[in-house]
């Protein structure tokens, strides 16, 4: 029995006709909206590859039923760069080689964006390691990931100091 939800994805509001109540946010993004940057690694909230921001908060898209999201706002990896300008977290992941195969990378980056905007990490690598531990990287790019989150944190603070309104409270940077 089709029904529709209203969902803002990467700054664009959509009315989405859901063909099935069993659809998760992850499968909605990947198989229906064709936003395939968000990855499925385990489909049960254990690996973090599907991390997106829901109303500014980090969530596992695989554990979230799309039907429950009427009126919500979702930011995915595709909505992070500002036009041709990478988000500081994205740039830091490249600079610090915080990725290898790249499959967990969108989830890692969305987690990092979330935790930086929540102000949890500070400048403490141990805190970053702990807070990023919901995202598994089987290639073992953790050292680069930790370094990238710290560097992006610095870059974001500098940016915020320079132009206080530059980055929204929830870390979303989508137009």
């Amino acid at each position: 029995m089709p029904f529709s939800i209203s969902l803002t994805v990467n700054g664009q509001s959509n009315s989405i006709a859901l063909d099935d109540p069993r659809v998760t946010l992850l499968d909605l993004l990947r198989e229906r909206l064709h936003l395939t940057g968000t990855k499925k690694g385990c489909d049960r909230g254990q690996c973090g590859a599907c991390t997106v921001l829901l109303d500014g908060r980090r969530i596992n898209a695989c554990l979230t039923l799309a039907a429950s999201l009427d009126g919500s706002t979702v930011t995915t990896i595709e909505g992070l760069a500002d036009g041709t300008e990478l988000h500081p977290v994205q740039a830091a992941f490249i600079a610090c080689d915080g990725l290898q195969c790249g499959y967990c990378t969108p989830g890692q980056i969305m987690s990092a964006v979330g935790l930086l905007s929540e102000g949890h990490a500070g400048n403490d690598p141990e805190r970053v390691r702990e807070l990023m531990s919901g995202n598994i990287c089987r290639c073992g790019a953790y050292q680069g990931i930790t370094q990238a989150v710290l560097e992006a944190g610095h870059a974001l603070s500098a940016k915020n100091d320079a132009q206080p309104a530059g980055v929204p409270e929830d870390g979303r940077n989508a137009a």
Partner: protein
Amino acid sequence: MSPEPSSLQRTPSEPKAAISRYGSNAGQPLTRRDGILKVTGRATYAADNHPEGMVFAVTAVSRIARGRVRSMNIEAARAHPGVIEVLTSANRPPLFHDPDEKMPPFGFRVEVLQDDGVRYANQPIALVIAETLEAATEGAALLDPQYDVEPARVGLDTGLRFDPPGVGVGGAPMTAFGDIEAGFSKAAITMEADYETPPQYHNAMEPHAVVAEWDGDHVVLDMPNQALALSCATYAAFFGIPVENVTIRSPFLGGGFGSKAIINGPQILAILAARMLKRPVKLALTRAQMYGPVGHRGQTWQRLRMGMESDGQLTALHHRSISATSAFDDFLEPAANASLPLYASPAILVEHEGLRLDTGTPGPMRAPGEASGSAALEVAIDEAAEACGMDPLEFRLKNYAETEPGTNKPFSSKALRTCYAEGAARFGWSRRPLSAGQMRDDDGLLVGWGMGTAVFHCPHFPAEARATLRADGTALVETGAADMGQGAWTALAQIAAEALGLDIDEVEFHSGLSTLPDAGIAGGSGHTASAGLALNQAGGDAIAQLSDLAVNDPASPLFGAGNIGVTARGGRLHRRDDEDRSESYAEILARAGRSDIVGTAKSARDPDVASTHALYSHGAVFAEVKIDPDLGQIRTTRLIGAFAAGRVINPRLVQSQYFGGMIWGLSFALHEEAVTDKRTGRIMNADLAEYHVPVNADVPPLEAILVPEDDAIVNPIGVKGVGEIGITGTVGAIANAVWHATGKRVRKFPIRIEDVLSA
């Protein structure tokens, strides 16, 4: 069919990295060329494809480990809205190759519904195809299979032992040098101990997936694949079509670690369903379904015996492994072979026995044989040093192999002494107390230091490449390589650019596609050397042709220089004896009226090199652990590796490979184990919460020292391999550090809290 980018050439609309490129070309720490695609979510993995009219396939898998499927409720599945078809052994369309017939060179038997038998838990027993993923998943759940169950053979006591004809991929099951018993009778000191390593699963973050689309008797497969040409040939045989009718697109693999080099049943079934239904089909395994049909690292039970003179000199080294495989196919961890290349014992005996269990067939998993074997060997060496009252590094140096043990072949290069020295110095090894249980930190935690030697062989696969110099002086370079995270998109392009004398941004690099020249297998840490040599030679061929044009053209400033007298650099050919006399590629081509020059190469290892030299990468790993004396919690707090692996094409990516390997070693030592229920033969922790792999907080600050090593022998580009060596040495280093902290010698991996708490 949607076109798939096989090139990473940027278009103007793409986001730019907010960082400048650091360096270029071979030897420089260039950032990943695919970095922007990967951080923006635009890198396309197999399951990201969605051709028009695509439907979804889900496998139903066996809940028993041995027996047969008596019945399934096919009607319930078919009746579920959206379900299109249910394939079982009763209605599966024919294949053109017997799935129980092994196809050389790396063929495995596969389970593709050839009968109603069950050979292991999680074996596919049906394939449900539906309009949506949700409907296919529900349809598979409705099948409610009933079984005739036979007892599962699990573990050493119930499995069938056998003498294997070979181990690993075509390796000898037994190798002996010298007189082993004479060695032992000569020994003043001996050690003997048994070690166990568990079944481990690759668990690449990207589950195995395929999107298959047929057009008549041509098929295009989007799938993560470590061996494009080999896989095309295998699929062609299964589907009875010419090999050129199979196209595999694999621009990015979400990790492979060996598991995506081997053909597996679920992917074949999905391709078959697409042909049958005349619609594109997508199949992605669930995480749980990856614990069965897509390979794993087989369990081992190893025994090591060593004899030493009183000064620590080895007189005999005996390494025996019982390696588990499935009930129906053979892949045995060549674990004992780890004892062949490293320590200078006058007598070495390595041997293997097979054990059949009701499990999916094991396969190569990152450092197959080397990882399991090194884990046992490096602990045994520590025990031998302890028995001799020697420092473990001193013991290793005492038994340093100047030539390959047994064969006496010289090493093409071996900077292991430097690895030991630099790693030890960086770690502060000289301050290590000899006996165990001597160190505590300020919080009262037990502190231990351990080390291990790392070693990995250097395979070389035949490979082909094409390099086209274009009229504008830029180049197109093509080879069907596989980037599973090691950085092929970047490192191979660096090699190509160097061979062509161009900046890397002048080189358009096409890869990850089976219609390109065959780049060989991405495995055995040999991909950069193998595909790289082909690219080097194809580039050299193009430059040689260009030189011919220039030096034979009276209008060229290079006229008469002769090939030998010209170098390619910065897009220009220069006279070697007069660097100021030069001409650009574009000018040479234009005057010759050529739109391009195509260089090609088919490269392989010079057979003389392998017969006259021993070819290995080496390293040394040093670990510190801290253990809570009351809780037994083990933390690795420092991990330092020093590795020598020939020429480094990109130090940034090589460091990441070493880190990844070291983390796999840490995982082997302290985390990973698939636990099988002895009653049912099912794996009880087939998910990423209970099958433990390290998360960020498990990993200490890492250091990898890149020890310079020139090797003009191993291959013309001097490249060895870096992908797997980091695991070896690390497992032992951590286990030995646990002993050093506690005095408890744990010989079963992974080392757990209860192992260090128990008396």
